[in-house]
């Protein structure tokens, strides 16, 4: 795996955030004018249990360098039990991805409550730094059609 190191390179990091805890926490980070890297983008979902593991695969396929799934702490789920399912799903998913060669830092799940603005900031800052250190993700990525064409023309198979 050759990793192109480029100082200007910014990773793409997707963060699925549950509406009731982490998204609120992220908003609170804004209210408190906390600073964190621009390369993290949140997708609002009602509950972390809404996040289908297939979304994670899709993100990598489309070129995400890292994916975060964040929800309420166990016991605090707005919907009572959603994050317990999240916990099982993504513990297994993370292992399966690692087994297929994806660095576990590229896919992480975290519990961040609505009041933990600082934890949100610290988490995304840390994840961003980790992924920057890892470099661009080349695994599972479907090449953009232009690249695909070049690759094909460069030498069949």
């Amino acid at each position, binding site marked *: *795996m050759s990793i192109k190191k480029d100082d200007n390179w910014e990773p793409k990091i997707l963060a699925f955030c549950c509406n009731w805890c982490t998204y609120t926490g992220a908003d609170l980070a804004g209210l408190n004018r906390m600073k964190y890297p621009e390369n993290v983008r949140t997708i609002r979902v009602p509950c972390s249990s809404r996040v289908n593991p297939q979304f994670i695969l899709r993100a990598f396929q489309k070129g995400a360098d890292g994916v975060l799934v964040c929800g309420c702490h*166990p016991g605090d789920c707005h919907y009572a039990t959603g994050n317990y399912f999240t916990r099982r799903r993504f513990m297994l998913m993370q292992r399966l991805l690692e087994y297929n060669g994806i660095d576990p830092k590229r896919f992480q799940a975290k519990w961040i409550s609505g009041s933990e603005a600082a934890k949100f900031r610290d988490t995304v800052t840390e994840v961003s730094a980790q992924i920057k250190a890892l470099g661009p993700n080349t*695994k599972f990525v479907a090449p953009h059609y232009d690249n695909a064409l070049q690759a094909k023309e460069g030498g069949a198979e």
Partner: protein
Amino acid sequence: MAGLTEAQVQDRIREEAKKALASGEVSAVVGWTSTRFEDKTKPYFAETEAECDLLVWNKYCINGTGKFALDDRYPEKKIAIIARGCDSRALNRMLRDKQLKRENLYIIGVVCDGKENAVCEGCQHKNPLTYDVLIGEPVEEQMNAERFKEIEAFEKLTPDQRYEYWAKQYDKCIHCYACRNACPACNCVECYADQYRTGWQGKAADREQNQVYGLTRAFHVGDRCIECGECERVCPMNLPIMRQTKKMLKDINDLFGDYECGLPDDAMPVLGTYKLEDPDEFM
């Protein structure tokens, strides 16, 4: 085979098949019949008494029979399945997944001492677990101490080695979906992979789509896999498909305790439930 010879079992199968058909409650008996090649048998639906005599039992009866029970989800009559241990687990799988009704099945269990099939070496259930009539004396079951040996060895590789290995494997995949169609845990009415318009994945059989399919498939069946090995057996391109699903099973065993599917009192698949005291790595 304790007590009975291969030929005797075959006779008993034919006899039970005829009895089942004669009862009038059964539309067909699913077993195996010979092909023009001595070392191959194929799944066969015996629908008349005479056809029952075409049923065979030998070491080449490797195809799973269980999944054929799903051919008709709304049967007017029972279907009889000649079931080895793995086939009975397949049926239990589909029963647990509410895809079959037990009253629509007539299970002719056959004690199996392993076939000319790689997966049989690690078999932990040679005796059928669920049946209406049993052929052969139950044998003592062997625990497979090396159930996850292959997975453990593979886990030791570097991430890049693992990725490269799988990428090469998925390059070979031709998207034929044999693994899915043979799998008793793949019992959806319409597979997500067939829903191109929803956009779960593209139809192209390129590496990336195959990777998405391979991982999604592993995740979808991983907590319900009965380890029959049909996916791997049917793959025309010889992808080591069990190496993905077994990884799921291994992790489930590690994280949530001993876990095996397709047993008669099958618990809820681990991804369909939770425990408050589950391990938590996301703090």
